[in-house]
Each structure stands twice: as C-alpha cells, then as structure tokens.
C-alpha cells in the first residue's frame, strides 16, 4: 500500500509576518479617551498576517490531519461513521444559523419543531419518556444525568444516605469522573470472567448507600450484558437507579433499548450514534433521556407543543436541576442529528445497526486466527483484541497502521485487557476497507520488533517524544 501524508515545515502563526489588509469599518479613535486609563489598552498582542496567508496556513495544516472523509477511523466507543454532507448544508441555512437565542419562541417555530421532533425521536429510540437536548457532550450528559439522580434522591429524602455510585472496571473514564464531580463516591467492581458485569460483585457492592449503577450496554468489550434485566432488578431492588452510558448505542439502536432493559436515565452522543462531525474534538452534543418519574428534574427549558400546535420553551418543571448550559444545547449539532434520523428513518436506522454489528463480526472472523480475542466471538459494535500473543506492543502496531494511512483503533482501553486494541468499524466502511484494515493489522503483527518501532515514517512527523512534552511543559509559542 502506498501512502504519504502531506508534509510541510509549517511555521507557527506567530512566525508568519505579512501585511494584514482585512477590511473592517473605520471607527472613531477619539472614543479611546472615554475608557478609564487604568484599563485602556495600548493595542492587542496579535500577529499581523495577510488573510491569504492565514488560509494557506490552515489549509496546509488540514492536509496534515486525518478525518473520517479520508477512510476508516475505527476508534472503539467513538463511533466514527461517515458524516453526511446534507447535514452540513442544512446547518448552514441562515434561518437556522443566524438566529439569536433570545429572539422569542414565536419567531423560531421551525427550530423549535426540530428540537421537539428530536426529543421525541430520541425518546422513541431509547424508550424513555422525556428528553433534554441541553447537555453539550457525552460527559456533560453523564454529569446532567447524575445531577438528576442526585436531585431525585434529595426529593425523596435519601441523598444523605445514598452517596455511592457503582461502576464496572471496564467503564469509560468519564463515568467515574462525572459521578465524582457530582459529589458521589465511586465504587468500582471487577468484571466477571466472561467480560460482563459480575452479578455477585454487584450484589455485594450494592446497598442502601448506593445511589446508582452506571453501565453501558453493550459494554466496552463489545459484549451485550445478557443478564441486564436481572441487573436492573438487583439495582432497583436496593432502591438505586440504573444509568445508561449511550456511547455504545450504535450497537443496538432499533433492536433493543435502554428503556426496555430497565434503565432510568440515559445519555446519547449525537456526534457518535447520529453522525454529527466531531471537529477534531468537538463540538459534540449529549442529550439526556429519563423515565417519567424523573422528567420533572430535567434541566430547563424543554421544548413542548401547546394545544394550538405552537411550540414553546417550557421553563416550568417542578423539580428542575436548573441549567447545565447557557441556552438550549448545541443547536447546529441537534439540527444535524435530526437530519440524520429524518433521512434514515426507522428502516434505515435499524439497518445501520445491523450493518455496524455485521462489520464488527466480520473483523472478528478476519482477525481471530492471528490475535487473541477474549470473551467469545459474538460482538456488537466493537471488538477488543490483545496483541500479547504476537509478542508485539499495541502502540507499535498502531504506529504501523497510521503509516499506511489507516487510523489506528483505540489502544490500551478498556483497562481490563492487556495490550489491547478496541476496534469499532461502524456501518460506513466497505468490505474492501475492512479487508485492507485486517490485512494491515495482521501484517503489523508479523513485522520484526526493530522495524515496528521505526514507524511512522510516512506522516508529517515521526514518533513524538511524549515524555518530554509532559516534563518540559511548553504550552505557548
């Protein structure tokens, strides 16, 4: 395979000096005198660069970056699927993009209808009763969900007692971080030998001090928790709530749902399951869905429809946790997710799930002779393999892959498998690309150690000294 990423010795923006001629309306300099002297600026410290140089600079930088438009991006639990271009087109319609949040409900009926419809669609997909679109990312969705649980426990007088949140050792790092941020103590339980929740460990950890159990299903090993209804009974039986981390929702959408499994609170990742672009690390969007008994705790406002058919922002929820974001959520991301669901419909969404799971299991088949894939062969959206049996390090294999123009899977996560790679192909990859990926991974395992350590050589830089970056902090040009 021939691949070479564009390579420029691109200077920093501060190292480019050209004549800035960007036109801005002239203003009255005398107004400077009105500003109190102790806070008056002598001039902002910014580089002087011509617009054409700024555009060339960032265009060159973009060519030294990999996106899902360039090929497979199989980061586990990140669900990097193709981002449809129609969504970008709709999001750039000025009636949507040039709207001020305080313009008044009657002037944004189109936007409110879209938000209302997305709330309904997410409710329907998850079998939850009410949804807030306000949280701005998956982690913030978790935080919001935990704040809702907290407020609920407070309302029934149990918050003083229930201070613990139980989390399996295979959970995403955001789960314990969100729980701790909301003031709970985190109790971690080990997974069982089959990679799923250890019911005995759960039973012995759970008590009248437990506020909630947070899990994702399928879990980060790509395994469906078969005993999920039993888990729900154990959790509810002790008076605690069950939280669904929606990062892996792409594995089950349309087939089953958190609501049917017995979950009380769920967050969605619109930038994963609903194909909104991730932008190199955001913006995202992390709506939260809840069962009816928790709906009065949602952040405000939520979008509702009046009897006369008009949509409005309802701030009047009896026990609301308040606000977690300035306005109504990441509207342009919400809009893209609405477009994705509307385009695919019930038929397409379910088929996408099937294709995503089929692709994963095809990769299992292609890789199982060369790598140890623990915990059975039937996976959902992702698989986790270990490179231990090959004697190679997962990190070195990742660098070999990227050198071929193939983005590497997540490495060293989840934490309960050593030297692991977590691979999520998604539904938007052709068989050819799945084969190219599998062949490359197998080929990596057969390289000699010396040559494996030499990668990458075809990218804009070679392997980076991360220890130096942390020890000799340089965070500013």
């Amino acid at each position, binding site marked *: 395979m021939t691949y070479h990423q564009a390579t420029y010795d691109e200077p920093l*923006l*501060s190292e480019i000096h050209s004549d800035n001629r960007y036109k801005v*309306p002239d*203003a*009255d*300099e005398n*107004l*400077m005198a009105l500003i*109190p002297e102790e806070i008056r*600026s002598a001039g902002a*410290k910014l580089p002087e660069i011509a617009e054409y140089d700024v*555009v060339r600079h*960032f265009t060159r930088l*973009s060519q*030294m*970056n*990999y*996106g899902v438009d360039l090929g497979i991006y199989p980061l586990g639990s990140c669900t990097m699927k193709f981002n449809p271009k129609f969504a*970008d087109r709709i999001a750039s319609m000025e009636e*949507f993009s040039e709207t001020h949040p305080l*313009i008044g409900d009657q002037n944004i009926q*189109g*936007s409110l209808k879209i938000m209302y419809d997305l709330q309904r669609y997410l409710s329907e997909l998850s079998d939850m009763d009410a949804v807030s679109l306000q949280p*701005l*990312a998956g982690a913030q969705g978790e935080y919001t969900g935990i704040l809702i649980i907290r407020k609920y426990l407070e309302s029934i007088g149990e918050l003083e007692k229930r201070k613990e949140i139980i989390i399996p050792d295979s959970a995403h*790092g*955001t789960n*314990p*971080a969100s729980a701790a941020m909301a003031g709970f103590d985190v109790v971690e339980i080990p997974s069982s030998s089959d990679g799923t929740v250890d019911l005995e460990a759960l039973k012995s950890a759970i008590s009248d001090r437990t506020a909630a159990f947070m899990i994702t299903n399928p879990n980060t090993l790509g395994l469906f928790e*078969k005993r999920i209804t039993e888990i729900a009974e154990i959790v509810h039986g002790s008076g605690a709530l069950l939280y669904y981390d929606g990062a892996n929702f792409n594995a089950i959408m349309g087939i089953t*749902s958190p609501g*049917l499994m017995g979950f009380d609170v769920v967050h969605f990742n619109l930038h994963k399951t609903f194909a909104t672009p991730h*932008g*190199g*690390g*955001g913006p995202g969007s992390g709506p939260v869905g809840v069962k009816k008994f928790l709906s009065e705790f949602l952040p405000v406002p939520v979008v509702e429809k009046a009897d006369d058919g008009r949509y409005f922002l309802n701030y009047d929820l009896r026990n609301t*946790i308040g*606000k977690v974001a*300035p306005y*109504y959520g990441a*509207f342009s*991301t919400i809009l893209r997710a609405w477009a994705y*669901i509307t385009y695919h*419909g019930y038929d*397409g*969404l379910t088929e996408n799930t099937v294709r995503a799971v*089929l692709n994963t299991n095809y990769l299992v088949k292609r890789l199982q002779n060369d790598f140890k894939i623990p915990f059975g062969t039937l996976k959902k959206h992702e698989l986790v393999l270990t490179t231990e049996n090959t004697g190679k390090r997962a990190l070195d294999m990742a*660098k070999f892959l990227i050198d071929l123009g193939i983005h590497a899977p*997540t490495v060293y996560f989840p934490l309960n498998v050593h030297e692991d790679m977590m691979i999520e192909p998604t539904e938007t990859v052709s068989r050819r690309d799945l084969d190219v990926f599998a062949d490359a991974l197998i080929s990596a395992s057969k390289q000699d150690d010396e040559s494996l350590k030499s990668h990458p050589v075809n*990218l*804009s830089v*070679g*392997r*980076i000294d*991360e220890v130096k*970056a942390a020890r000799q*902090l*340089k*965070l500013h*040009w």
Partner: protein
Amino acid sequence: MEIEDSPLLKEIGFHTTDELFDDIPMKVRKKELRIPRGISEFELIGLSRELASMNRSFRHNFLGNGIYDRIIPSSVDSIIGRSEFLTSYTPYQAEMSQGMLQSLFEFQSIISDLTGMDVTNSSMYDGFTALGEAARMAYRINEGTEILVPETMYRSKFNVLRSYLTGLNVRIETYRISPVDGSIDLDSLSNKLKSTTAAIIAEQPNSLGNIDGNVARISEIKGNALLITYYDPISLGVLKPPGEIGSDINVMEGQQLGLHRNLGGPLLGILSFRNEYARKSPGRIIGESNDTHGKRAFVMTLQTREQHIRRAKAMSNICTNQALFAVAATAYLGIIGPTGLRKVALKTMENSQKLIKSISGSGVLKRELKGLPFSDVLLKYNGAGNLQEKLAEKGIAGGISLDELAHNTYEELKGNVFLSVTEKTGSESIQALAKELEVME
C-alpha cells in the same frame, strides 16, 4: 443489495442477521419504532427549507447580551469547513493529527497573548460552563468555601455556575454592582470578602453592559481569594488584558470570534490561568515536543489530570470540547489582526454612543445609568407593555428586560431594558429604531 444477502454474513457463517443479535434476550427486543420512514436527500432538503421558513428573520437587530452578530470573515467558515478538520476525532494518534494539534497549540498561544495569561487550554464547551469549571478549579487550589459573584450576573450564567458547584462545600455569595454608577461597588465587595473566600468572579464589561474600571482594582483587595475574570474577547481590542490587572483565572465566551449565533449553541468556552495552576486545571492541553528526528511536533499533554487516566480523581470529566471552534477563533484573530480587533471594538462603542444619542429624543427610552457601555446598552423604559414584543411587530429585534435576564436586580433599575449593538449595526437600523420609539407610547 439487501443486507440479508450480504456476503459478509456468509463469511462469518451466519444465515440471517438475526443471529448477530442472539445474545439480546427476546423480552427486551424492540417491537416497533415509531419514527417516520426514511426519505431521500432531495426531500430532506425540501423539508428543511420549509422548517427554516417557519423561523422569522428581522431586518434590524439589537439583540446581544452574550451572543452577538459580528463580522465573520468568509475565510473562517472555509477553514473550519475543511473536512480533514471537520471530520476528525480528538487527536489520539498525534503523528497523524499534527494539523489539528498545531492549530490547537496556536489557539492556546494566541489566546494567552490576547489575554496576557500564562496558559490557555484547548477549549471548553462555552463561557458559562468554563466559568463553572474555573470556580471548581479555584476550590481545588485554595479550598475556600465561598464564591463571590456580581448580584446582577445573568440568571442563566448563575444557574450554570450553581450546577457546577453541586456536591462541593462552596456557597455562592453576591456583591453589588452600583445601579447608579453602573460599576462594581468595591465597598460591597470588600465587606463580603472573607479569609475563606475561594474566588471573586468579575465580569468585563459587567452585567449592566458597562466597561468597568473597578475590575482592575480587585486584585489590590482580594486577599487570599482568587480573581476569576470573565471578559468579552472583543473588548480586548480596547481594554488591557486580564493578565495585566491581576487575574488568576480568565474565562471568555468565544462565539464572537468567528462563530454564527446558531440559537446559542454550540459555543466556545475559553479558559486561561496562571502557570502554577496548570496541574489543577480541567480539559485538554496541547504541548510542544519533538519527534525522533528533532522536528517540532505537538501532542496532548498533562493527561494524568484527565478522566481517561485519573478516572474518579480527574480534575474534570470533560473530554469532547470545542476543538473545531478553537480553530475558528484562531483563524478569526489571525485574519482580523490587532488593528482589526481594535476597530471592531471601537466601532461597537461608537454605535453604542450613536444609539444613546438617537433614542434620547423619545420619551420611551432614556439612558440613566452612568458609565460607558460596550455592546449592551441598558436603558430606562418608560413605555407600557413589553418592549421586545412591540419592537418585534415593527421588524426590530431587541429590548430584553434586565429583570428577565439578571439573577437579581435593584429597585432603581426595575423595568430597564437592553438594546445591543455591534460593529455591524447600521445607521439605518438605529434610525429605524429611533423612528419607532418616537411614535410609541
């Protein structure tokens, strides 16, 4: 091709796709999905246009108070529309993602220069949540038990801050903004200050819309408390940076730096701080290093503070942030430059002054508050009925009341309203507003 006929299915030895879901118990299977059937792109665009037309656009805009209609160079949209940026994930494979990493390093640097702060992280969700994180950070640093905030802080900002302090042993206390002078009441602030105060939050311009000279005097009286400043980044075209007036942590909303209003989201949170607080800070940080050949290269660093490593002991749960918009802000500042930013800020002030002058003829609105407004001009409203609704009938957007916006307000300011301007506000809009006010009662 029907999925049941997929050759992949045969390859894995399955006959039907149902077998892929054998591990999902029947009793939790979904029986129906009440979502409309999928449609084509052509139909979807048509439907979207129809819904877009249900939104009303206004000829004259005087809405602001945190979200503004500012000049956006076309190049900014073009740059963040590059699909290599738009469709990339968090740069976990650094060697393959130098473009995004260098851009984010430049964002950190350009913002640190603009604000005079030592370190800036690679972005937060928005200004309000970044303020919440800043307050949590202050608590981690000095374990103080109160956060002092201006009494007239916007209610939504106050409520987000309160959410972010849940579970911590921290109370929010308020200090006064003088309803006459329109600036921070330093006596009130001093009186509220204790040895146990974690931080003082001060806004510039303040929540009454004024450029506030007193923000610069807080560092003299703050004692052990940290000073968290909340700056309008455009105001830095004419104001001294927060780093030069003793700010310990600075927060900004970056929407004005090249982002469309988008009904208020997604936005861009900007968080900067002193060097010594870096290890207590939340969020992604990009550091410079080099590759095996000694070539300059960039990576995510200080990751041991973060959730994927530290888990329950992480500084924050944040992972996805607003990377793409950090690139937009960097491109905006690069294109507009120091002279451009100064002109944008000055033109805004010029338009505020024009607005005050042009409405003074009407009896309906009057500027009573002293002090120098920036974008948001607070005015005494003497008319009957809801001003925002009355103006909307005439195709003018604006007139939000302070009572609606502020966490708390003062008797002297009851019924005051905001009209906001930017460098884009045209004379024709100001004239149209003045004309409507003349005939209004």
